[in-house]
């Protein structure tokens, strides 16, 4: 029995090699499908690892207060089950900032945080980049310190001074070898004085984290003409349990805000929110890629049907010298499986190679289960889309098959 299977397998290889181009084109659908599924899953998991790592680097005592209800309800559903719902409405004022700073006994650092886009210019050079409005505690919280000059301090922040700290990339692009500290740059028609340049932090996924500038969040409010603070970035005291700090923040904010107006996320819950979003995204993208697997399967079925017709006479002869319908069925099933599995293996290799090439941007990993999944799917495709042609071959009447021209 094993001998017969091996023989059938060899025969399938010979047949497919005799039609190299055709076999390759037939496999293309599977190759593309499998490699994109592998690649997308590996990018998804790489992204997750990277972002999780970045967030964990912020320390376990960081808390984020965002507008809108971001709480993920277990099992989805319920009000605000979708992350990001209602984030458009800004609710935080300077009052909230002062209350958190003054009354938060468990809190070590409270920063207002905002993100805007703006054009920074110096000596005729322009750069449109992200302008982060942050608190004076930023270097300590982010663990990223100035390599030139200083960061702005508490009183400068409270006074809303027009001071700016540059990311390394921005400093290099605008100033080159010149020392930027003390120079004036223009941002949204305002002159800002450069007080420092932050050390390099590195990029991720093509986004350069050093390609932004930092101004006091109070200054950001006046510069971009908004009376609300986008969010708070808070650090709890080291000896305080994170839950306690979270409750205190909620208590303070609930005096003036409703429960649905804001969410307090700690690093852990932020990681789980992002992981969940990325997970859904990865599955959705991989699912779309998987559609091409079905297309590939149909391609295999199509070529197998052609092959059965072409080889009608051969099938008749095989039957005449003693092949049972089962043997013929097996022969064509194995052939379609060799097609789909070879395509699957090539796809896995290509996907893995692509994932390896992405390594310079992202810690992509090709997980065992995605390879296993891709491989099993190709086997299943070979069987499912091979059954119809193989069945047709097995059912051929030997006399008519022998006469077929």
């Amino acid at each position, binding site marked *: 029995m094993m001998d017969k299977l091996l023989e059938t397998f060899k025969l399938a290889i010979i047949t497919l090699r005799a039609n190299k181009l055709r076999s390759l084109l037939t496999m293309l659908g599977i190759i593309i499908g499998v490699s994109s599924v592998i690649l997308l899953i590996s990018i998804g998991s790489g992204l997750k690892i990277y972002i999780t790592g970045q967030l964990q680097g912020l320390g376990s005592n960081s808390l984020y207060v965002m507008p809108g209800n971001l709480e993920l309800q277990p099992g989805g559903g319920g009000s605000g089950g979708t992350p990001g719902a209602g984030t458009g409405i800004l609710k935080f004022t300077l009052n909230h900032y002062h209350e958190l700073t003054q009354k938060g006994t468990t809190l070590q650092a409270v920063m207002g945080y905002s993100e805007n886009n703006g054009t920074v210019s110096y000596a005729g050079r322009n750069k449109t980049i992200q302008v982060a409005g942050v608190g004076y505690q930023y270097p300590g919280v982010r663990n990223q310190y100035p390599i030139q000059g200083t960061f702005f301090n508490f009183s400068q922040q409270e006074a809303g001074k027009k001071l700016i700290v540059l990311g390394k990339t921005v400093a290099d692009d605008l100033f080159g070898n010149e020392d930027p500290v003390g120079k004036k740059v223009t941002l949204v028609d305002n002159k800002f004085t450069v007080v420092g340049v932050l050390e390099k932090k590195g990029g991720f996924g093509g986004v350069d984290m050093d390609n932004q500038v930092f101004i006091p969040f109070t200054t950001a409010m006046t510069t971009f003409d908004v009376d609300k603070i986008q969010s708070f970035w808070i650090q709890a005291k080291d000896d305080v349990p994170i839950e306690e700090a979270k409750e205190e923040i909620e208590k303070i904010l609930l005096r003036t805000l409703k429960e649905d107006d804001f969410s307090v996320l700690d690093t852990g819950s932020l990681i789980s929110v992002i992981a969940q979003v990325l997970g859904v995204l990865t599955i959705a993208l991989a699912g779309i890629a998987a559609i091409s697997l079905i297309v590939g399967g149909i391609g295999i079925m199509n070529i197998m049907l052609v092959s059965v017709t072409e080889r009608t006479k051969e099938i008749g002869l095989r039957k*005449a*010298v*003693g092949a049972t319908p089962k043997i013929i069925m097996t022969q064509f099933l194995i052939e379609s499986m060799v097609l789909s599995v070879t395509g699957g293996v090539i796809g896995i290799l290509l996907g893995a190679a692509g994932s390896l090439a992405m390594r310079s941007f992202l810690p992509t990993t090709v997980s065992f289960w995605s390879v296993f999944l891709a491989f099993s799917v190709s086997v299943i495709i070979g069987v499912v889309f091979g059954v119809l042609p193989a069945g047709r071959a097995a059912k051929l009447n030997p006399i008519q098959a022998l006469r077929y021209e």
Partner: protein
Amino acid sequence: MPILELQNVNKAYQLDSQNLQVLKNINLKIKKGEFIAIMGPSGSGKSTLMHIIGCLDTASSGKVIFEKQDVSQLSEAELAQIRNQKVGFVFQSFNLIPRTTALANVELPLIYKGLDIKERKKQAQEVLEKFGLGSRIYHFPNQLSGGEQQRVAIARALVTQPLIILADEPTGNLDSKTGAEIIKIFEYLNKAGNTVILVTHEKDIAEHAKKIIKLHDGQIIGNI
């Protein structure tokens, strides 16, 4: 004791609600070592008769007995086994599998018989050598002449040492000189003890056989 016996065999096809009687009450006994030619014009039913003898087809009624075993009501898989072990086919158009060596073509019935690779290579090679194709065993069908192809096909029919060799117009695609050579091979095989049944419409080919069965309208009309 006949190795093959047909008792009152009838074959009818249903064609457009018309009942087409192709074979009528065929009674036939074939003994070991016979050399029989089945002759008849086209449409006389000689192909159908050959298919029934070769277990490619089953009779509508009557019995086909192969060495005491009635095969007329067997399943397709069981018939395949009979064809594999008891019948060797030779066809007009050789029917070698393309892009497959002469050796692999001859090995084919032995694969289905379940022989291991060493044994079947040995047996297939022996038979090919016997037909003077020892230097051609790794050639593909398109690298062989018509006569050589038919000799490979005969080797394939013979390799399982079948009870009967069934040849359907084996010289039909060959020139007369090569055809004569092929007929000589059948005569030689018969002398060596093989039972040969030759289906042909050519009288001078049929005359090489020891016995001629003439078919007309599905009936045996002559038995020479």
